[in-house]
Every structure is written in C-alpha cells, then in structure tokens.
C-alpha cells in the first residue's frame, strides 16, 4: 500500500467514517443494556446475595444466619406462615416477593475472612447479578465486604458484626447494620455489673488481639471506669488460641477481683471454660467473690462452654426467649423449620433481609439511591427488638440491648441463658461522629 497519496483531509475523513462505523454497534448495544443502577433486575425475579462463613471458627453461626436468610426469602415470597412479616410495624411488604418480583438467592462461604468475603461477594455481584449482599459473622469481613459493595454500587446489609468501626470510622453510605456494637455492650453492661458486683472493683481484661477485641475492650474499660472500676491489667491473646492457661494463671495474683473476657466464638468458649477450671470463680480477692464477665456472648458458643456459662453476665443483640410477638412469631417459624431455636445470628440476618426488601417496596425501586433514602432514619417495630431507629447519620440501628445471664438450672440443651435485663436504647445512644469516618456518596453504578 502506498501512503504517499494520503493527504491530511482524506486521512481525517476516513478516520471519522471508520470511527463512526466502529462505534455504531456499541451505541445500539449500550442503549439496549442501559441500566439505571448496578444489577438492575429485568426479569420476573430478583437475586439476593448471602455471604456467610460456612467454614472456619464461625461456621455454625454462619450456617444459622443462612437459615435465617432462607426463611426470610420464603416469607417474602409468601411461603410458610409469614413469620415476622405479620408483626413488622412499618412494613409495606405484601408477601408477593419484592416489587412484584420473586426473590431468589445465591450464597457463598466467606470463611469469616476479609479476603474470602470480598471474593465471594464479588462473584455474587458480577456473576450472579446480586442486587444486594448481606451477611457476616466477623467485623473484619463485614468491613471489607461493605467497602466492596460500596465501590460496586450495591447495598450491603451487614450480618453479625460488633466492632464500633463498621458504622464508625469505616461506615459507608451503601452499608447498614442492624446488629449492636461494642460501645453499646459496654454502656448496657457496665451499670448492671457495677450494680451486681459493686463499684469498688479491679478488672483484669484478657482480649482477642484483633479489631473487634480492641474495640470491645476499649468500650467496656471506658464504661466501667466511668462508674468507678479500676483496670488492673489489659492482656492481648492471639485470635484462635485454644489454651489460655498461661494468661489465666497470672490473674489470680494480679490484685484483680473481676476477669473480663473480650473474646467471641470458640475463643470465648475456651477462655471461659478454662477460667472456671482454674477455680477463679471459687476465689476470694480483695475480700470479695471473684467474678467473670463476658461482654459479648455468642449464644451458639455458649453451648460449647457448657456449665462454665452458669451465672455469667454479658450482652446480646437478641434472644429467642423474649416474649414480644415478633420474637414469638420468628421462633415459631424457625423452630418448626429447623427443630431448634434461632440464634441471634439467624435473627439479625432474617431482619436485615426483611428491612432491605421493605425499603425497596417503600422506595418503589431497587435503585440504591432510593433504597438508602428509604432506610435512613426509618423507624420500625415488631421485629423482636422493640422500637428501632435506623439512624441516618451512621446507618446504625438503635434499639434495646439485652443483658443476659447464664442459666443456673437449665431445663434442656437450648436453655443456656436468660434475659437478665432489657436496656433501653436511650442508654446506649452516642453521637454519629464519635469514631470519625464519612458515609460518603451513595453509589449505584457498577
């Protein structure tokens, strides 16, 4: 080919025609694929993504959370007895799916790890077209998935995550948390334990060495010290430790008269069991009975701790023994479906799925911009936690917190704990900028 005959004008003309020709098909295809927002459902169904740990140390809690989600999908689609759909005040859900579309779901194993959670959520968003992702049992995975969903223009409804950071410094406009947090645990529990054990106490903290553990320790130390307790020692232990004996033996001679175990899951079960084995509860220190406190209880792992749980005070987001009509309805549906009472992990998952679906119905769209608006400052009741506010400033739910106590005389294997006190939401309120962070803009495009 001879390029010497090509002048500037001819080159520009040819290039323009060629460019227009190449662009033509993409104009048509992009027009046909135009989406108002990421993963906009076009058929008769809409897909929810459930990212829960099915393996790893929180595998059982993840599995129970997934049961909660599955039950929620059934109820949203009008199957079963409807569960808390019948008691949900503030609901416009009709039991015919969401916005007339049948709810389907995909699930993935997050392993309670940040990277695995991101990978499985990404797959659900990109491959399966999930309109919303929900689920977690660790704060690390919740924060990571929340950030991913925000970047992808997807709504994230957090599962079980208790660190202050999830709706604190790491909050996102696309992320919402129904579960309570470490600060709330501290504020709810401190007055109860000070009342039960006295104001003149010295506490020894043994804490899981990761984001949630630090958050929990800081919160309970702050709350108890403000009521007169002293902190004798703060010791960090690696996450996933099985034998705590080397950290427990110094407790007895530390001058402390309370041991606070800032652990969760298997770690909580092991640390608590071993603390009791070391005779700490039989001891006297500073002229008082030695006490053990577990600020954040895992109801499923409390079963693993067995008799060691008896009489131990801690907090919980929700418990199946509550007597309100929402809880009763949920326990009935869940128990009949699975043969055991639901855990707080299952409850928060179920509620988050309903809250998201209801927000879509109220907004009349799946577009995250409408959904976020519908969820912010939404007030509701009848979902087992009493009157609740989804605060717009940080996307954190404010509702009652339970102080629970290990049952002295259990009647059966599910009868591990009792509700000791229901703490009103006003007692655990805080400013929405307490831990910094910015919600940022709503994102709705992939």
């Amino acid at each position, binding site marked *: 080919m001879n390029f010497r005959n090509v002048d500037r004008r001819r080159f520009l003309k040819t290039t323009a025609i060629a460019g227009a020709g190449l662009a033509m098909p993409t104009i048509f295809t992009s027009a046909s694929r135009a989406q108002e927002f990421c993963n906009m459902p076009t058929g008769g169904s809409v897909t929810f993504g459930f990212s829960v740990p099915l393996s790893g140390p929180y595998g059982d809690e993840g599995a129970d959370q997934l049961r909660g989600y599955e039950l929620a999908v059934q109820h949203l689609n009008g199957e079963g007895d409807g569960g808390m759909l019948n008691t949900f005040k503030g609901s416009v859900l009709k039991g015919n799916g969401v916005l007339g579309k049948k709810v389907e779901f995909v699930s993935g194993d997050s392993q309670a790890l940040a990277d695995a959670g991101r990978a499985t959520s990404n797959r659900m968003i990109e491959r399966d077209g999930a309109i919303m992702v929900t689920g977690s049992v660790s704060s690390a995975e919740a924060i990571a998935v929340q950030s991913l969903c925000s970047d992808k223009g997807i709504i994230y409804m957090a599962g079980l995550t208790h660190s202050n950071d999830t709706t604190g410094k790491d909050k996102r406009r696309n992320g919402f948390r129904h579960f309570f947090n470490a600060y709330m645990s501290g504020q709810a529990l401190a007055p109860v334990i000070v009342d039960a054990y006295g104001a003149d106490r010295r506490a020894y903290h043994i804490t899981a060495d990761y984001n949630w553990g630090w958050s929990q320790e800081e919160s309970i130390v702050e709350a108890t010290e403000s009521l007169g307790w002293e902190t004798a020692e703060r010791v960090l232990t690696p996450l996933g430790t099985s034998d705590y004996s080397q950290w427990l033996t110094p407790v007895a*001679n530390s001058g402390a008269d309370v041991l606070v175990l800032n652990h969760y899951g298997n770690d909580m079960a092991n640390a608590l069991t071993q603390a009791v084995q070391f005779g700490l509860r039989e001891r006297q220190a500073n002229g008082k009975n030695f006490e053990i406190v577990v600020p954040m209880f895992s109801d499923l792992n409390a079963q693993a701790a067995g008799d060691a749980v008896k009489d131990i005070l801690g907090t919980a987001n929700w418990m199946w023994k509550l007597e309100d009509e929402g809880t009763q309805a949920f326990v009935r549906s869940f128990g009949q479906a699975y043969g055991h009472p639901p855990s707080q992990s299952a409850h928060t998952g179920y509620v988050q799925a309903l809250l998201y679906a209801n927000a879509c119905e109220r907004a009349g769209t799946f577009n995250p911009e409408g959904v976020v608006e519908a969820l912010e400052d939404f007030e509701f009741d009848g979902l087992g936690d009493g009157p609740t506010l989804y605060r717009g400033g940080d996307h954190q739910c404010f509702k009652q917190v339970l102080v629970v106590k290990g049952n002295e005389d259990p009647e059966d294997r599910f009868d591990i704990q009792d509700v000791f006190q229901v703490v009103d939401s006003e007692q655990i309120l805080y400013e929405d900028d307490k831990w910094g962070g910015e919600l940022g803009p709503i994102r709705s495009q992939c």
Partner: protein
Amino acid sequence: MDWLILQFLNGLDKGGAYALIALGLTLVFGTLGVVNFAHGALFMIGAFCAVVFSRLVRLETVTVDPERLSPWGTPLEVRTPVVELWLGDFGTFLVQYSVPLAILLAIPVMLLIGWAMERGLIRHFYKRTHAEQILVTFGLAIVLQEIVKASFGANAIPVYAPPAVSSSLNLSASLGIGTDIFYPWWRLIYLGSALLIIGLVIAFLQFTTYGMVIRAGMEDRQTVGFLGINIQKRFTVVFGIAAVVAGVAGVLYSPIVSPNYHLGMDFLVLSFVVVVVGGMGSIPGAVLAGFLLGIVESFASMAAVTRVLPAIDQVILYVVAIIVLLTLPRGLMGRKGVMEG
C-alpha cells in the same frame, strides 16, 4: 512465690502437651524418616474419640410429651440417657467417666488409623524428598480435618472431666504455702499422664528387645535388615504407637480445650518447633524441648513481661528456636547426620 509455682506448673502442663505430640513426630521421623504433618490431625482425632464415646454413652431415648409444647409450638421431646435407664448407677459412672474410658476406644481406633495411613499412603513416600512428604501429609491433615468438620460441625464440642476431678486443687494446703494457689485437677492429671506415657514409650524402646531392634534400625536400617529382621514391619508398628500416643494425648486434652476440627493444626507447628529445638530424631531431645518451651512460653505470657516486651508471648518459641539453632545447629540433643543433606 505463688505466681512462680503457678507459671511453672502451667509451663510443665503445656510442655507435657508439646512433648507428647513431639514424641510421636520424632518417633516417626527417627524410624521411617518421614516428616509427618498429619500428626496433629491424629491428636485431633483422638480428642474426637472422646467426643464420640461421650455421645455414645449419652445416647438418649426421645419420647414426645403431647401435653407440653416446645417454644415453637410442637409437642415437647423428652430425652433420657439410655445407659442410665438400663444400667442404673453403672450407667451414671459411664457417663461421668466418659473421658478416661474413651482411651479404651481411642487405642484401637488410632492403631487402625495409623496402620491405614502408613500402609495406604505414607509408605509410598519413604524414598521421596522431605518437601514431598510434607506436602502429602499436610494435604492428608486437611482432608482429615475437613472430614471431622463435615461430621461434627465447626464449633467446639464440650467434653467434661469426671465430676470428682473437675474442680481445682488447693495446692497451698498441700505445699504448706500461705497464699491460695488453685490449679485444675484435670491439668495435673494430664501432666501426670503425659509423664507416664513418655516414660512408657522410652522404657519400651530402651528396655525391651523389640525396642532395641527399633533403635538399632534407627541407627542402621540396612545392617538390621542383613540380620534377617523385617525392620519395615517394626517401623509400621512404631507408626501405630505414635498414632496411639497422639490419640491418647488428644483424649486426655479434650476436657482442657473443647475439641474442634482445627485443634491439630493449632499444635502442629509448635510441635515441629519443639522437634527441631530438641534435635531431629532425638526422643529425649523432643521431651526436653517440649517441657523447656512450655515453661518459657508460660513465663513469657506474664503481664509483667508483656508490658516490657509487647507480644513476646506470641513469638517467644520462635525466638528460642532461633537462639538454640544458632548456637546448637543440630538442636539440643540432635544426632549427627540427621537432616544434614
């Protein structure tokens, strides 16, 4: 004084656990020359023998009481343990002493698993490199732990020590010390059992003809073979013994840490550190290093120490390993020529 006794006891206790697993690892390495990364899984399976035995003796008959309802509205299930129903007081004894009695289940089970592992997989890798052995046995460990997880779930399952020894012993009364020193009975029993098992294995190797042949085989397998002794068969027996030691250690450990599928992995890496510090292939070295590292770890975890050196408790074993290997490259009691090219 009391803190010293408590930390020392705790160190011995941890050391006992390390030494028991390291003993089995060293036995297998010293005889078969195999670096067995599945050894921790054997410890975990032993712990689950206690779970299985405990569940067997707690098997319940379920009757439905139509007059009482469960919280979800179905007729209430009333559960009664079968052995207590059938055997009365003896049934209660079986339930309460399920952990020590589980050893009777663990011994044949671990022998069988050990034999199947050695014959079915590990013998095919005798002449392979250590890297290949590590890969295949690590893979086996993951398979075993996933099987256990699929069967028993991911959460820890509580197993209880007999009620008579579930509390703590007040050592101050026994030792005539003024202040109160409590130490869990079962941990003391565990320590005693660890010393007994270690003593029995060493005595078996040291004072029996069978053990003498095994020791000779460890030194020079070829010459023992020339004498017409099937040393390979005896080494297979050693693998079985190592599996039983790990399994029994797991059973006895189950009331201390509720068994979970990850238990073996928790101990495996630490036990390899113990073996390396003790000297590859040296049984007395493994035992000595096990107790030494247990005690060092215990004292390093004291708040007074971690205040000065934060997180030292989490790395102290590796720091000690580095120091030992820099000063004694073969470990504390390592033999010349083992793992030296």
